């Protein structure tokens, strides 16, 4: 019964074989189900800002319905992290950022094609615990919070939050600010963790549903985020990459984005 039983290795081996078989079966069934229809085909990887997670997943589902032989895989993260990844040679075909600066940065280093397009807009909101126990009504009230979650300083949502706080003339003590890697992780600190408030995109607040309460940031303090998209120059499937971008820009794509709380560009 001990852990270091000598019979363990054999059990392990059976287990490993089983797991491998399951994966092989899954892989085969996946490849079979894609062998149909006509038109575009192949897999593309879309590196997208974490705040696009839900909207882009829905977009990809619709896109695949029109192009059944296409597979879209995602790499969600902060726009700035994605920039570093693409520069380091990470495989990607489309880059969608929560700002225009990240795309421009990649354009300057020659990693994306220069035709970048703004496809959506977003704004900031304060997310607090349900029923707002701290009574936070504005950016100024956030100084009352014990722990405020913000995006990392170099990440677009972190930069936007800094601008908004500056406009409101609010200085949060660094000792109360926890910095998360991207927008999704930031609101997660309020939803799952014990952060009292977070500054995130209004789309994140919408996606979080009832697990947070939302506080509007006044117009003169708020920031408009412009989301930009471009195809990666070294893409191995430029055709599908461009088709995906066209779909995001299409009326159908835009209405999906609106459904997830984004504003039209």
């Amino acid at each position, binding site marked *: *019964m*001990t*852990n270091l039983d000598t019979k363990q290795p054999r059990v392990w081996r059976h287990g490993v074989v089983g797991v491998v078989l399951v994966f092989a079966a899954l892989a085969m069934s996946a490849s079979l189900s894609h062998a149909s229809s006509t038109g575009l085909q192949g897999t593309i990887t879309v590196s997208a800002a974490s705040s696009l997670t839900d909207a882009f997943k829905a977009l990809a589902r619709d896109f695949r319905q029109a192009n059944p032989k296409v597979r879209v895989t995602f790499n969600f993260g*902060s726009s*700035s*992290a994605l920039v*570093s990844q693409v520069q380091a040679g990470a495989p990607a075909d489309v880059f969608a950022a929560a700002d225009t600066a990240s795309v421009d940065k990649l354009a300057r280093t020659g990693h994306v094609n220069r035709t970048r397009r703004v496809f959506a807009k977003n704004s900031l909101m304060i997310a607090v*615990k349900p029923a707002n126990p701290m009574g936070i009504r504005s950016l100024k009230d956030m100084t009352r919070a*014990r*722990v405020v*979650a913000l995006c*990392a*300083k*170099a*990440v677009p949502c972190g930069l936007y939050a800094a601008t908004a706080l500056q406009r409101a003339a609010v200085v949060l003590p*660094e*000792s*109360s*600010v*926890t*910095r*998360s*890697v991207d927008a999704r992780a930031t609101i997660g*600190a309020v939803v*799952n*963790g*014990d*952060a009292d408030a977070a500054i995130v995109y209004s789309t994140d607040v919408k996606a979080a549903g009832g697990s947070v309460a939302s506080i509007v940031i006044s117009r003169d303090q708020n920031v408009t985020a412009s989301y930009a998209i471009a195809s990666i120059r070294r893409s191995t499937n430029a055709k599908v990459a461009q088709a995906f971008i066209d779909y995001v820009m299409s009326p159908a794509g835009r209405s999906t984005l609106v459904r997830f709380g984004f504003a039209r560009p």
Partner: protein
Amino acid sequence: MAPSTVTSRTPRGLTVVAVLGAVFLLLPLLGIVRRVAWSSLWQQLTSPQVTEALRLSLLASILATLCALILGFPLAWLLARAKVRGRSLLRALVTLPMVMPPVVGGIALLGVYGRTNGLLGSFLYDTFGVQVTFSLTAVVIAETFVALPFLVLAIEGGLRSIDLRYEESAAVMGAGPWQRLTLVTLKLLRPSLIAGVAVAWARALGEFGATITFAGNIEGRTQTTPLAVYMLLESDPEAAYALSLVLVLVCVGVLFALRDQWLGRRS
């Protein structure tokens, strides 16, 4: 060359793969060293964010190792000596944090100490107004959680290898249980104790997943060195590599200090 009796028996294929394995382990170290900007190294290591992170890491990892030692020694004793039912189950439980993804550990800790939904955390907050998460306490708890198994297993192994006759003869000479423990067992246990403490400390020092999930990432409060490395990688990659170098050197230092325990154990 090593004695030929051994080398002649090692199949050549194995040696080749072994060399590949060694290279595989060595290359990432070179990868760090190569990227360090040596001319500005000192400047990067003395920036406020970095010194704060190092100070915090040192403090938290030492506290965590102490906690792990206090909780771990009795557990190791039970596992090695006591004849209790369900001992293998207990060992599995102790080993769990070692094999569990640290992020999952962080979520699990949130479920216990979280202010709003935590098993104990909500009680602590409602009754005493104490919030565990996003604090140094949370960092120490997270690090203790992941470091404890290393300590327990090392001490357990040490306890098992001690010849019980030493303690028996001490008992014959009239030593009580506590005297036997402090005068005989702990003395004999010293090598494994030191090894366990060192590995547990290194593990605590490197903790990332559970910390960022459970304790957050507050500069000067919960942003330990690994978290600082991760954040700096985007804003200031050179500083990230400089700080990584420090962590690697610390680990090399730990191994060096333990060379008699591990590297020369065979002799």
